[in-house]
């Protein structure tokens, strides 16, 4: 169906519509000015950081363990992260292969700065998390899109990756589970992609921040664990999503030691070390009981069922959300451009969602909806959205 080409959207949204990140923030700013908005936009878990993690941070504060740490992160935290990535992800890494970062986003920024020269091409599955665009632009890199599609649940095909490779290709960026699509790149596909990466001497930067939030029967798999991949894989992760710790700004990277050294040199002159209190919290998260991760996953599983039922009632199609905190839904049945639809749902339904155009220019028929509200609130959101859709459906 052809989308409405004349969206009735306000100037402050129209002005930033071409910049995915700014578009999302413009909608969030509008929502902040309104009362009673159900926010299903930003990927900030509504759940609290588990008590044992908060208690560890409080103890560090009270004990005065809040001085500057090494740029790469506290030694004990790096060692525990390395052990975790060996045992859980199968990565052959030691503490010298690990760096603590100010959230996952900084991990990507540092990796791109360390790896990408002007003129280098970096392959990025489409749709993409556009917050990473700035890091690539800043390094002078060029993004080359690799298509994914709903019929394949936004899984990534090795053939599509290989077809996009040129003599300037230096790296492939994978986000699995994906933001925004909630697809995962399955183990069989990752094995095929690894073969392509080795044959073409590609670096693989893989963002696994949602790797602990994968829905049955699917499983997360780390491409860096495959033979021949350790020396060409940069694995990004963070405590933000799995442990509901977005405000602590604490993530980590596993990579060959020379990459970690380069990232540390860059981090020293760009942001400095991660806040000590956040590192103590991270240490408690990764070395403490993991029941909270399973508990939160069950909560998201239940919410996902409610949200998908609501989308069915709206007539939205979607690829199976296999991991992460979002549903990436096809709103083409409404006949309304996704940017306009998002604005209408916010302005008239008081529900904040993000248009697909915030994640790639072509995605005007898609919206991203989070499951980061309690079930009753998600049901309320669906009830608010339905009459707006009926009113404007073309």
């Amino acid at each position: 169906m052809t989308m409405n080409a004349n969206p009735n959207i306000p100037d402050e949204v129209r002005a930033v519509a071409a910049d995915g990140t700014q578009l999302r923030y413009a909608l969030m700013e509008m929502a902040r000015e309104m009362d009673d908005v159900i926010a299903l936009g930003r990927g900030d878990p509504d759940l609290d950081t588990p008590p044992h993690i908060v208690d560890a941070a409080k103890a560090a504060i009270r004990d005065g363990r809040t001085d500057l740490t090494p740029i790469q992160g506290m030694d004990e935290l790096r060692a525990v992260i390395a052990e975790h990535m060996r045992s859980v992800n199968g990565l052959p890494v030691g503490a010298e292969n690990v760096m603590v970062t100010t959230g996952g986003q900084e991990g990507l920024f540092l990796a791109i700065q360390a790896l990408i020269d002007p003129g280098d091409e970096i392959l990025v599955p489409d749709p993409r998390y556009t917050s990473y665009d700035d890091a690539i632009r800043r390094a002078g890199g060029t993004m080359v899109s690799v298509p994914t599609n709903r019929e394949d649940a936004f899984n990534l095909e090795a053939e599509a990756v290989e077809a996009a490779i040129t003599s300037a290709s230096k790296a492939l960026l994978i986000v699995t589970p994906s933001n925004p699509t909630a697809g995962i790149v399955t183990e069989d596909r990752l094995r095929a992609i690894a073969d392509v990466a080795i044959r073409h001497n590609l670096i693989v930067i893989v963002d696994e921040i949602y790797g602990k939030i994968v829905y049955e029967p699917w499983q997360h798999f780390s491409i860096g664990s495959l033979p021949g991949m350790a020396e060409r894989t940069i694995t990004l992760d963070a405590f933000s999503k799995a442990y509901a710790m977005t405000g602590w700004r604490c993530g980590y990277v596993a990579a060959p030691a020379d990459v970690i050294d380069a990232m540390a040199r860059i981090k020293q002159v760009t942001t400095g070390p991660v806040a000590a209190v956040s590192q103590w919290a991270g240490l408690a998260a990764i070395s403490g009981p993991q029941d909270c991760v399973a508990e939160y996953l069950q909560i998201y599983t239940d919410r996902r069922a409610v949200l998908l039922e609501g989308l069915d009632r709206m007539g939205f199609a979607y690829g199976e959300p296999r991991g992460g905190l979002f549903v990436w839904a096809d709103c083409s049945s409404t006949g309304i451009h996704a940017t306009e639809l998002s604005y209408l749902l916010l302005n008239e339904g008081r529900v904040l969602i993000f248009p697909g155009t915030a994640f790639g220019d072509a995605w005007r028929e898609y919206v991203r909806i989070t499951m980061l509200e309690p079930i009753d609130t998600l049901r309320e959101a669906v009830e608010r959205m339905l009459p707006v859709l009926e009113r404007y459906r073309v």
Partner: protein
Amino acid sequence: MQSPQTLSRPLAQRVENLEAPQPPAVMAPTLTASVVDAAVTALDRGETHYTDRPGIPEFRTWVAEHLRERYDVSVDPSEVTITCGSTEARYVCMTLLAPPGSSVLCPGDSARIRGALHLSGARIVDSIEDDVSLLYITPDVYRETSIELLQRAEESDWWIVYDLSFAKTDPPFHPAQNPKLASRVVTIDSLSHHMAGWRLGWMAGSEMALRLRAGKQAITICTTAVSQWAGLEWVRTAT
């Protein structure tokens, strides 16, 4: 399997000649009981989520009031961004205000901006040249030098970064007191002397404030929430 030591391809050229990380300076902060309580109370309140991208409104308001009271400089809280220490503020300013190939005029110690400019591709000069895009000064630069350069700045389109974060002196002088310059002046400061390990700084002012905010967001999204609440208590009670 052996842990990987070397990437299969060369690193980016910009990494060459960047200095190796220094061991952390021992700042040994002694936090007051009220700062400790503020941090713990913030955690009890559930301040563990993203904050507003530019920082919590209370802290930004304090920064704006501080600049007005201490230096008679008017900055709106919406023009303030809380950063991960002054390091992040300097990097964001250097990369967004000094295009690659341009010159940054730095009449004093350039050590704190050298790395950021190496990454951005701008160069440091200590005298006026044609392609200057930014003047970086601190309160420690001999005042007559600053005045002379700021007079030249009035006739140019230079951005001005006034970095208070590691100053040994704190005169009431501020370049944004000059109305002809105010829209082009960014003030940087931090709590690095007192709470270095909490990673708190800020950048304030100029007509580029919103772009600077977006530049910070692209790197670290926001500054650690509990650090902001602890820092707010520190500035309210210790300054």
